[in-house]
């Protein structure tokens, strides 16, 4: 456990020092803070649009950070040859990979927390939302995005074990898009009477295999409080468990690939 934590801590430090990530973060923070400038709509609509914009910006920024952070993770270590000094010590390859992943997730968590705090401050100071329940509802969005982005980071780490950063960028982005899209697509296919049974089964299989990022998009009921859901906490727990299991799948697959890779 100790080597994993040491690698994770180093990764967090590296991530925070990377200028490209800080620039993305600053752009995200700017948009979060600038969002209340759109005070042209009706009181309720203003809040609805504001929440959709702010949560959207946090999600988008986090996705870009998660991808950029992870696609370079292993290739950079290999390119700079720093991986040799690490692996020459009593550190197993799986420990290195898991440490790198945990470091990336921790850095992501720090950046997302910062954006969430700014969002809350913006709602408290500028929009005068002082109700604790409403603020805690708002936090549920970024909390689920964090699980979503941790899963996205796992996808990035998995691909970084065997493809170049540029290819990885598009692969991870593509998987994110497909994972966001496949649920509605599958549902359309399932309800289409003209689809063959084979195609429906194939769609079912792909839907069960792909990481479904759409599941974590719970912001709609935060933006529109009139749309209620039964037992939201149970649903969020299920989502988190699902996310963790899928992260485990990707990390194990990454470990298996990385174990055999010549470095």
């Amino acid at each position, binding site marked *: 456990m100790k080597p994993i934590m040491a690698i994770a801590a180093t990764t967090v430090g590296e991530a925070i020092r990377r200028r490209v990530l800080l620039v993305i973060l600053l752009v995200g923070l700017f948009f979060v803070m600038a969002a209340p400038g759109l005070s042209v709509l009706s009181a309720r609509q203003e809040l609805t649009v504001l929440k959709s914009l702010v949560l*959207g910006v946090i999600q988008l920024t986090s996705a870009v950070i998660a991808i950029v952070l992870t696609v370079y993770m292993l290739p950079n270590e290999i390119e700079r040859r720093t991986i040799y000094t690490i692996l020459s010590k009593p550190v197993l390859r799986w420990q290195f990979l898991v440490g790198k992943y945990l470091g990336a997730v921790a850095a992501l968590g720090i950046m997302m927390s910062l954006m969430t705090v700014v969002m809350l401050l913006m709602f408290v100071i500028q929009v005068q939302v002082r109700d604790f329940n409403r603020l805690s509802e708002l936090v549920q969005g970024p909390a689920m995005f964090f699980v979503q982005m941790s899963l996205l980071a796992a996808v990035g780490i998995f691909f970084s074990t065997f493809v170049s950063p540029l290819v990885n960028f598009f692969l991870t982005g593509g998987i994110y898009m497909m994972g966001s899209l496949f649920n*509605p697509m599958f549902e359309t296919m399932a309800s289409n009477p003209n689809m063959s049974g084979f195609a429906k089964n194939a769609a079912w299989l792909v839907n069960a295999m792909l990481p479904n990022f759409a599941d974590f998009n719970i912001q709609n009921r935060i933006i529109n409080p009139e749309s209620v859901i039964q037992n939201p906490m149970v649903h969020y727990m299920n989502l988190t468990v699902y996310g963790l299991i899928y992260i485990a799948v990707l990390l194990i697959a990454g470990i298996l690939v990385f174990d055999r890779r010549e470095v």
Partner: protein
Amino acid sequence: MKRRKNWLIGLLICFVAQGAMHRGAVYPTWKKYDMPKTTGIAVGLDPGQLLAAMAGFRELVAGILWVKADSFFDSGNYDAVLPLIRLVTWLDPHQLDVYATGMWHIGYNFTDEESRSDRRYLPAAIALGKEGAKQNPNTYEMFFETGWLWYHKIDDQYERAVGYFEESAKRKDMLQARHNLLANAYQRSGQVDKALELYYKLYDEADTRFADDGVFQARQIRDTIENNLDTLIVRMIQRGYFAQERKDGSFETGPYDVNPPFDVGYSVKLTVEEPKVVRFEGTWNVLPVGTRIRVVLKDANFPHSIAGGADWDWGDEIVMDPDANLTFMQDQFYVKNRRFNKKIDMSRDPTIYPFTSDEYIVEYYYNPRSAAAHMQDKFGFNGEGIADSNFLNTEVRPGQRVIFAQMKLTRDQLLRRGKYRDEVPVVMTKNFKQSSTEVRGSEDMIVVPNLRTIEKKPEAKPKAPVLSKPRANPIAG
């Protein structure tokens, strides 16, 4: 080798577990609550917006588009708002304000140069409301908004408004004060008993709430309901509603305000003064102000046409661009000193009034259910107190006595073409008499009863026998 085998077993277990978790626990909840219920690709999104929407940022794109719609609205570019409303509701079907604002915008804001609504948009407004209600069944708002459109804008077929208001009243989040509107809709749909029942129920609830809370607002709501309840009971008594219900002949002989029915003496003359410019002159023997007689000019084959208008519920499809070949004009005559005289100019709005049909119908329609309360005091809840020698009609709205007249015009007449280039087209009812606007003697004036004058009320006699159908072809010209 053994360690690798263990990793593989772990991978397999986790993979199966994630699939089971997704299909068993996560996906059903997503399908129930988060699945977009509108399908298909939204034509109109630019590639970037479509990509963002596909990548799970539907709400973000919806928010940006709605801000854009708002700026179009402020600049008066109403046409540009329409596709954005559709896109936003497609992207985020839970944005109630977009549905509600969209309905209002489509239903009310498209007007001609004389501020008459372009009613060809109403089917789209209703379809949008229906979709909003379907997408947001947990909240009362879209049911209420759709009901309001029927109640206020369409102002006819009140049973439709009642249906939506009843649905909205089933939702727990319905604002207390808005329940009163259901009682009003009941009255206008002829279900006066139900209105009374509802007021009693609302009063009991409000009284309990006031006893529990003791706050001013609760008392205010209770007192308002009490006032509405008292007023309704007085009206039911004075308009002979209870006597009618007894069916023992007491209504026919009793001194109720609606007895005897008053002949309104409706007559009208239509003159096409210039191409697409029509003047209406006519009589209405009711002296107090407040009468609004509906006039409709529409294609003879206007879709879903009904007497005095159209049935505006054309289905679930939201078609934002009305058929450019349809003509439908609706306005009202305001009666002053028992006469009306109104010029309607449709020449300045060729897109709203294209006049592409060969034949047109002009309808005049007065429904006591839509009348102001002081008119209803004489005419009754369902027109019991209204009569007309020529145009009383009990068929176009079953169970009601309304005033209804119809005329036909040709395209040549309206556009002053062919032989009408020099000859002014005039169509009038046979009973129309050109006269001055001065009030004649008091013998043919209606005295609208009220609580103070009821004792002094002169015995008005009907000017003409009460007919259930108009006489054969009372329209001349």
